[in-house]
């Protein structure tokens, strides 16, 4: 069924897209949030990165949005695409309808139009959760490195792949209601450092960071995070695992 629809669309002539963007410039006191529609001709292989740049260069040079790598690696361009959080740079217009609505990620501080300050929030989260290796030994960079099982290194990388795009926060029901919630990005980082033998912290230390309703116990397992994560991180299982470990600390 989907295959048939897809093929039909490919056969179709070039589409004219309507891209409705929720505009707002907080720096301008007269600005109020409103949807503004732009019309462009769809091109083959067009991504939202291409479409938005075309709109900015040919229709409205004041349109604000953030792209950096435009390859789905850096996490700058997360936005609500037809209501769902995703990376705009790697979203092909052919996978969307002829009318596309774009809005800034909720939850984060709005800079303007589609641009939000995820960086500030992520840095705050890193500071709050102390997302670095805690090891008081002095590094001897001349000596052979400490050994690690290959599977363990791969397992750590699996969790290290987070790009801090903010999609999980925007997809999280809890975060919409409680702004101090660490979210999947924060919990995943704790899971990553907990797994890493180079980090000397134990579960009691981690409990100090996430053992409350703004931490792992605030998660209601709605799984918006897991389902929108552009890197397909195993958030569902990692948060469950942390919950078990932190609940055990609660019994001490």
């Amino acid at each position, binding site marked *: 069924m989907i295959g048939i629809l897809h093929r039909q669309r490919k056969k179709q002539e070039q589409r004219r897209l309507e891209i409705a963007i929720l505009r707002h410039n907080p720096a301008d006191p007269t600005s109020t949030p409103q949807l503004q529609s732009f019309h462009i001709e769809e091109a083959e292989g067009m991504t939202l990165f291409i479409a938005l740049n075309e709109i900015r260069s040919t229709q409205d040079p004041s349109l604000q949005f953030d792209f950096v790598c435009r390859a789905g690696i850096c996490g700058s361009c997360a936005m609500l695409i037809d209501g*769902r959080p995703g990376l705009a740079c790697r979203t092909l217009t052919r996978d969307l309808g002829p009318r596309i609505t774009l809005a800034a990620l909720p939850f984060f501080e709005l800079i303007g139009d589609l641009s939000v300050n995820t960086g500030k929030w992520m840095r705050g989260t890193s500071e709050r959760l102390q997302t670095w290796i805690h090891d008081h030994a002095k590094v001897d960079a001349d000596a052979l490195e400490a050994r690690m099982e290959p599977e363990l290194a791969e397992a750590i990388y699996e969790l290290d792949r987070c790009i801090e795009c903010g999609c999980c926060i925007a997809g999280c029901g809890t975060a919409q209601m409680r702004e101090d919630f660490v979210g999947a990005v924060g919990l995943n980082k704790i899971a990553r450092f907990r797994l890493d033998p180079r980090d000397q912290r134990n579960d009691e230390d981690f409990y100090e960071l996430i053992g409350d309703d703004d931490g792992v116990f605030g998660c209601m*397992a709605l799984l918006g995070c897991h389902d929108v994560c552009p890197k397909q991180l195993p958030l569902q299982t990692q948060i469950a695992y942390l919950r078990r470990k932190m609940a055990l600390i609660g019994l001490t």
Partner: protein
Amino acid sequence: MTALIDNKGSNELLAADASGQRVIHAPTAMPLRQSQRKSRWPARFDLLQSASGLFLALFLMAHMFFVSTILISNEAFYTVARFFEGAYFLGKPYPILVSAVVIVIMVIFIAHSWLAMRKFPAGYRQYRAFIDHKNHLRHNDTSLWWLQIWTGFALFFMATIHLYDMLTQPALIGPYESADRVWTGSMWPLYLLLLFAAELHASIGLYRLAIKWGWFTATTPNRSRRRLRWAKHSLSAFFITLGLVTLAVYVDLGRNHAAHAGERYVSPQHSTAPVRH
């Protein structure tokens, strides 16, 4: 325990560099004193919320099976009812035992409601934020939680009525007694709503528990989700069907017994109270 470093004191890491040169002396990291230790209650509350929910869901299933014994025969239901009054252990039925069970259930029920309500939207702003989020995300698990809130909210009233009934009239559980309550007592609309609310709430709750704690995992998270979702749908469907059929039998029984409403069921096998053999 490794000393945790407060953020400003995190410069201590600077001592761990590769350079043999001058390093700055970071403020000494203060080991967290015992009194500063983070409260263990959030963990315990979370465990209690899950445990109470699990208990109530299992109770609900068992309850449904007991109530549905009416499908076998009046006598079967009668036997089950007397069983819970301790008739087969104590020589004669003690309805007070039912009241005691009801009190325990009520306590757990209220505890569960209180624990769960902590997660409800606090105030209109949060309520709106969640609704907007749910509506634009169009995400199954998020919407399910909304259902969970509303069924939970409804249960708080409806189940309380039912529990109060059982608490105050523990002796009136029997084929005719119950059927009269359903029909002549006009309780069937409540039971109908209660059935849907309770069964949906319980099956979603069990599903959520399994996800939350990582039970019954398959090779990939998505595969375990699919499996759990199937189990959730099956549970809902099974118990709602069972409940509807059972309720229909009670309605039927109640209508036929309406003329004699209030008359109690007398077991043909035991014209007197059953005695222990």
